[in-house]
């Protein structure tokens, strides 16, 4: 059986003396969508940032495509194929849509396939093609989220990590974004999502992990967790509303 694309083993991260992550382990199989859910402050964003190389881990290991990522900078991780779409999107507001996408394909390998990737992104998010010359800051919330994901796709990643894709979006837009994430996945890209909208996340994912105060407390397939009484009570309201 092929080893997982991404393996996190016993990862611990501290901010000074404060433990943010304690002994976190998870696996992401290639070609799947994995969801990471939990309440605020559970450490989900911290975990993504650590995998992306923005944060230094005090313990543990991150293995991607059977190679350890220890001591590799973010730049090298992107080069290997892991890209993070950060919380709040962090688009370059004063740059145009096109420039944002261009920056996504900054590294040499991605740059060589720039036109291909651009077509792929426009294929997934047609509205971006129309707005290509406009400033990113002028896009609507949903469009901005699409651009953020598109920018990551420009790097030709094997794994895209998306932190809070539904932030600030209406339920309809959230559904649109998640459909797009599924479409992206069906093109072969592995996706790891951190989500507040637990119901949505559990519906589309293949596997999910639940985090609480810096640790993984539960894992299983999407259906299993949706059926889990504790999960329902803690995170999923009557009609799958947000936390």
């Amino acid at each position, binding site marked *: 059986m092929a080893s997982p694309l991404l393996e996190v083993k016993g990862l611990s991260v501290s901010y000074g003396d404060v433990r943010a992550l304690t002994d976190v382990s998870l696996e992401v199989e290639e070609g799947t969508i994995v969801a990471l859910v939990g309440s605020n402050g559970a450490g989900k964003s911290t975990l993504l940032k650590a995998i992306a190389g*923005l944060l230094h881990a005090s313990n543990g290991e991150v293995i991607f495509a059977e190679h350890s990522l220890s001591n590799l900078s*973010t730049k090298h991780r992107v*080069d290997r194929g892991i890209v993070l779409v950060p919380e709040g999107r*962090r688009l370059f507001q004063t740059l145009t849509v096109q420039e944002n996408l261009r920056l996504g394909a900054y590294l040499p390998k991605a740059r060589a396939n720039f036109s291909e990737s651009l077509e792929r992104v426009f294929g997934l998010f047609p509205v971006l093609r129309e707005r290509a010359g406009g400033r990113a800051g002028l896009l609507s919330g949903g469009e901005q989220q699409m651009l953020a994901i598109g920018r990551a796709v420009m790097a030709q990643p094997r794994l895209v990590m998306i932190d809070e894709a539904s932030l600030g979006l209406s339920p309809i837009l959230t559904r649109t974004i998640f459909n797009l994430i599924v479409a992206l996945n069906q093109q072969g890209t592995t996706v790891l999502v951190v989500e507040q909208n637990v119901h949505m996340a559990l519906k589309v994912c293949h596997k999910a992990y639940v985090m609480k105060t810096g640790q993984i407390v539960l894992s299983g397939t999407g259906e299993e967790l949706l059926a889990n009484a504790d999960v329902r009570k803690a995170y999923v309201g009557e009609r799958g509303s947000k936390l």
Partner: protein
Amino acid sequence: MSYFLQVVINGILLGSMYGIAAAGLSLIFGTMRIIFLAQGSVIVFFAFVVYFLFAKAGIDPYLCLLIIVPFAFLVGLGLFYALFQKATALEDKNVSLLIAVGLMYLIENALLKAFSASPRGLNISYASAVLVVGSIRIAYVPLGLLGLALASAAVVFVFLRRTRVGTAVRAAAEDMEATTLQGINSVWVCAISFAVGVGLAGVAGVGMSTVYSFDYSFGFTFALKALIALTLGGLGNVFGALAGGLILGIIENLTAFYISADWIEAVSYGIFVLVLIFLPQGLFGKRGLVKKV
């Protein structure tokens, strides 16, 4: 009226150098979030280099640009990696600020030691050539300053807007962390910005050598003028900084002719403090960069 116009034009010409220096400061600030106070001393350093190129090798100062600009760029890279690389990553910007202060003190005194306190000026053969438009007389050499400023502006524009690296610099100035997430090396982006900033200092050095009789102590006051220009123009906008320099030049010249040359400094610094207090984002700048969060 034409007298007034003459004063204003001369002010624009002299202010060009403040503008170039300020543009350099703006670029450096964009990515490194520090004001490189040693900019003035670096400019004087390059002015000395031009002086020697001219005096010993007879190279026309404008030709010196071909040597100075790449040299300045390399010096900038060197200074960054030697002095600022580690400090830029720190949260505490005071460290970088003090390194810049130390560098300014060092350069100034090294120049004093090496070249003594006697002022240097270039004896350019065409220095007295004058362009006459109506009743306005403009000497060619100061006009050259404006030329330098416009050329610099054009180059910086092309760099920032039309090159890949320049786009990365603009992105980094807006959001460094997000830039890192695209796989772009943030240290290197800072290095490039710094180097271009020092390159602009080289251009200003060439300009300074053509119009001033300069000595080692020019650096400090020039750095302050560049800072005032930057503040006037507004942080976060490289071309605003350039404009700020021109405006400062006009103000200074108007002060010199309608009040007295002794009061130039007081007016300039006074405006500086007033702008800081009442209009911190300057005329063209982005809000939120100078003010407290």
